[in-house]
């Protein structure tokens, strides 16, 4: 999978900065798929038009939050069709969602709920990933979620669970370093052991974000700068996994774009320190073809 450099989550308050034409510290953007689907049979509308403008100068990754890959309800076909169409239109570098479940019996909780880490769940998730990949026509990249509870029925660690799913489906892993840090605190496991348990070569992307605390628990709020402990864990992850496309998520109390760029720049400087060679910011006017090979999918630029 291509190395895209250091990116940021694309959020509407930053659209004008991103489209300003100035050289940004950000090499690529990750967009939340559901923000661009709309209500019609096909994705359309102003948000999508804006995303396509951003895509003229930056590689885009589409990150979903509603696939419910661990859920037991059948996939919602109309949702999957919209996603597939969005992928055709945007032609992202890759697509991702979370290793979790988001609802049951037709009710959506719109949250990323943890799964019990059992052999049975692995079998279930593997078949769901394969079904989704077949329908969407894309390899999925799957992200570890932060969690606040675990199940008495779990038979293995999260990293063993994740690694087995990667091995059996060939899906990429989106390692959220902040989520590992948060869950390590909440469930009293060793975050370094987690990293060591993930196979080298399996990681497509990493996420970094801020969190908050709720007395005994850490909460994955994405409303703050990345903390020192997460930066340290990130450096450790880079040592293990090599050059990995990295992205800063900031979703609540969203700061000015320049503040986000500082976080991106800090991630870059850590990677440079770990890998010993400069990793320069990309030129936003550079053609996206320079970053990764298009998948060959026909891209339609006016939303119809």
């Amino acid at each position, binding site marked *: 999978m291509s190395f895209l450099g250091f990116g940021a989550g694309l959020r509407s308050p930053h659209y004008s900065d991103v489209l300003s034409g100035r050289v940004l510290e950000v090499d690529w953007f990750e967009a939340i798929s559901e923000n661009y689907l709309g209500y*019609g049979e096909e994705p359309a509308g102003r948000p999508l038009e804006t995303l396509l403008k951003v895509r003229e100068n930056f590689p885009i990754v589409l990150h979903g939050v509603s696939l419910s890959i661990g859920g037991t309800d059948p996939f919602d076909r109309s949702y999957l069709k919209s996603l597939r169409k969005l992928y055709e239109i945007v032609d992202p570098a890759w697509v991702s969602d979370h290793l979790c479940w988001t609802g049951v019996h037709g009710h959506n909780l719109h949250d990323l709920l943890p799964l019990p880490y059992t052999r049975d769940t692995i079998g279930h998730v593997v078949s769901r990933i394969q079904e989704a990949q077949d329908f969407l026509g894309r390899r999925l990249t799957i992200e570890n979620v932060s969690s606040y509870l675990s199940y008495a029925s779990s038979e293995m660690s999260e990293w063993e669970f994740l690694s087995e799913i990667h091995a059996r489906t060939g899906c990429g892993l989106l390692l959220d370093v902040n989520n590992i840090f948060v869950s390590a605190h909440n469930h009293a496991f060793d975050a370094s052991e987690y990293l060591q348990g993930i196979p080298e070569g399996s990681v497509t992307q990493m996420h970094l974000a801020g969190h908050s605390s709720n007395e005994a628990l850490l909460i994955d709020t994405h409303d703050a700068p990345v903390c020192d402990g997460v930066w340290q864990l990130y450096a450790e992850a880079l040592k293990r996994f090599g050059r990995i496309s990295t992205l800063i998520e900031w979703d609540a109390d969203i700061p000015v774009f320049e503040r986000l760029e500082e976080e991106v720049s800090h991630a870059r400087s850590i990677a440079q320190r770990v890998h010993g060679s400069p990793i320069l910011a990309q030129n936003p006017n550079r053609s996206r073809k320079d970053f990764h090979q298009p998948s060959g999918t026909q891209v339609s630029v006016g939303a119809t």
Partner: protein
Amino acid sequence: MKNNCVGASALDRVSVYADAYFLRLKEILENDFELARVCLGQERFVSLVADYLAANPPFHPDAAWLGSRFPRFVEVHAAWRRIEHLPEILDLEWAINETLYSPWIDEKAAMQLSSLAADDLSLAQFVTDPSVRLVFSPALIEDAWLDRSNRSEGEPLETGRDCARPWLVVRRGAQGEVKFARFSDGERLLWREIHRPQTLTQTCENLSNWDEAVAALAELGGWAQRGLIKEIRLNSSSGNDEDLEKGETQS
């Protein structure tokens, strides 16, 4: 597997999810229904959201659909519908939400109309702006929506005299800006009629009993100028019912 429940009880842990559930959904509805929130005030809005979610738990994988049943819920609710203008405000704000997710079509109709021979005009069919949504509201709720960030919390909506053109037309501009217009009952009839797959001559025949709609025919040029009609096609065939369905659901 060892029990890792150190530092926080099982209840504390489940509560993180339970609390986040309501807060997250409330925030989505606050964003989609800003004017309704301001008019009701935060406390009453939260109470409305709680009633709505109890009756309509999120049903769609995409959280953007959460508010799609909100206007209807209030419209038929014994208590909430009594709050003056609340059902129309919710209708308006959902229409705005939908219109921003509509495709943009370049405006060609005005130029086409100026060069069209009179004989050809009778064969004209109209491609209308797909972003148009019609909301029935004789009150000028659009002014309140435009001014929503300056309004005081809980300030009831005083709209003065009812508007003679009771159909509020909501649509998007090229940059995603929200545009408003007003239709009379006759204009609305004409708007519905021109969505049928038929020529202008057939439209005129169908409208012959509706005086107001016939009068509104003079508006067609104005609609083209303002971008409500995007394109004119010359076609003598009468199309099919499927097209008709689609045109009507847009309004």
